[in-house]
């Protein structure tokens, strides 16, 4: 009898809860999407249209804002600077971190754990806390107002997470492989380069993607390092554009929307790496 009751009741209940799940999910999705769509559509309106009717479709559609930004050099130069800085950061942090993680994973030596802790302590030094003395150091090194002044500290501050994610992966590579390589006269360098790195492609992709996202969105460090507009990255450009044209909402929205595009494209392509990287970094670290 109970079984009969259960079978009769369940489908209804399940339908209700599924309906509720959809309602919540779609509701939250709307809260996420609406501001972004507002920005994109706002770029196709005039500021007059926006202040007269804040919630409305473009009427008529205006292409002037976007056209002006796309045809002016500023936007593209900022995209270029952001790309170059992300590339330098990547080119520095991934080799440095993987070499260190390789030794920390596969060699036993006195002080190994101390070195590992030395790196993981870096998680406690957020860049924001070090920003004032970092500025002085960069000035001393003559790195102010240059790509490297942003990229090198970024790479240094990305070392802890990268090493934390890489080490367990390198450790899981079977020892037999290393023996076999050693028998064939393959030294540590060749083993690292020819075997460990190719095997680690997925995890290397993950840490690279994380480093790129962090670099791409960085604001505080570029803000203090990059003085000349020629070197500005996209976040600096957005911030500056929004103060320069503070009365022209439509233009700001157009500029902001355009500067979202690279990140969104990258996200859609690399979603798996971003998600798995964050999860594995946090769960293991």
């Amino acid at each position, binding site marked *: 009898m109970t079984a009969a009751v259960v079978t009769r009741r369940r489908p209804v209940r399940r339908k209700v809860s*599924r309906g509720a*799940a959809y309602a919540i999910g779609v509701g939250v*999705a709307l809260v*996420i*999407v609406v*501001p*972004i769509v507002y920005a994109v559509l706002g770029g196709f309106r005039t500021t007059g249209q*926006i202040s007269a*009717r*804040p*919630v409305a479709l473009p009427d008529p559609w205006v292409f002037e804002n976007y056209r002006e930004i796309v045809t002016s050099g500023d936007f593209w130069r900022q995209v270029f600077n952001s790309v170059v800085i992300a590339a330098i950061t990547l080119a*520095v942090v991934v080799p*440095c971190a993987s*070499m*260190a993680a390789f*030794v920390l994973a596969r*060699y*036993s*030596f006195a002080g190994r754990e101390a*070195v590992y802790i030395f790196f993981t302590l*870096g998680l406690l030094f*957020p860049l*924001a*806390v*070090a*920003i*004032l*003395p970092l500025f*002085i*150091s960069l000035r001393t090194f003559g790195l102010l107002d240059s790509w490297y002044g942003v990229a*090198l*500290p970024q*790479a*240094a501050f990305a*070392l802890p997470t990268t090493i934390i994610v890489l080490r367990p992966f390198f450790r*899981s590579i079977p*020892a037999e*492989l290393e*023996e*076999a390589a050693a028998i*064939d006269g393959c030294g540590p360098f060749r083993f*690292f380069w*020819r075997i460990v790195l190719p095997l*680690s492609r997925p995890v290397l992709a993950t840490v690279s993607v994380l480093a790129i996202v962090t670099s791409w*969105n960085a*604001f*505080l460090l570029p803000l203090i390092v990059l003085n000349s507009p020629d070197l500005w990255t*996209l976040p*600096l450009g*957005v*911030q500056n554009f929004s103060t320069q044209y503070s009365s022209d*909402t439509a233009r*700001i929205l157009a500029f*902001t929307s355009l500067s979202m595009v690279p990140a969104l494209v990258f*996200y859609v392509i690399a979603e798996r790496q*971003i998600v798995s990287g*964050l*999860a594995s970094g*946090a*769960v293991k670290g």
Partner: protein
Amino acid sequence: MPPGPDGTLASVERRAVPSGSPPTPHPDAGRPVALSPVGRGRVGSVWRKRATIALFLLPAVALYILFVLVPIFQGAYYSVFDWNGLAPLTDFVGLDNYREALADPDFLASVRHVFVIVGLSLVLQLPFALGLAVLLNRKFRGRAVLRLLFFLPYVLAEVITAVVWKLILQPGGMGDRTLELLGLGAFSHLWLADTGVVLYTMFLVITWKYFGFHMILYLAGLQQIPQELQEAAAIDGASKWKTFRHVTLPLLGPTIRISVFLSIIGSLQLFDLVWVMTGGGPLDASNTMAVYMFDRGFQRSRFGYGSAVAVLVFLLCFVFALGYQRFVLRRDVRGALTSMGAA
């Protein structure tokens, strides 16, 4: 993650053994060799091993010392001087900067604001993220799309988020108008200009931007919980809520503790969003510690004082992290085991 599909492993092994030489059985075959293949007694190889280790560690260590450690220690040094960042460092003031900061109501207010945001995050943002993770952990059509959308704000730059929300929340802007259309016009506020409201507005934007990150962590944690446990609880007659409360939640413990940790550390260093949206204003009502430090250090050229504030922020992070490690994270292994026994 496993090291690549089997195909890669096999092909690498094939490459590693040149076809010319017959595969000679190695004396150590089958036995797990000490982590290092080098260093089997010969003196030269010991040194070679040491050199290898040093060489591999060198670039990372150098980069780390140069750009992370040196600035931190320098900051501690600057913090006992009255210094504008340019003149020679001569005006030693001892702990005066610290005394001034700890007596400055603006600084104390910025600390309080950060604690408000931490509190709200723990009470509202993280449970919200957990709820959505549980929702997305069920199988239904459109789940992947929702996950993609929920996580999207995390990938957008803080500056972009701040600029868009600032425009939405301007008086009579899209935010207010939407509330009116929904019949909630009475709720509209001077979101960013009212000193009593701005901090909560900030919290809403922070939630918008970061809940997806915590949701992803919880999802990863949920997917590691074996389904059998929940099924067993259901067979024993546990309701859905009871199963969640007594089976899922305890097993999710480690993930939740990590997410709480990251949320707090993140809040302690909050800068970009606040700086772009309000600059800490109006009347310092949305100031955070990092904004305060930046303002005093760079805007007012008080590098010594700013460094002292940075040291205080760092100490706060450090004490919190150590305490958390000691009292909360330590329980993880035991906690997981005992709650599994209880279930």
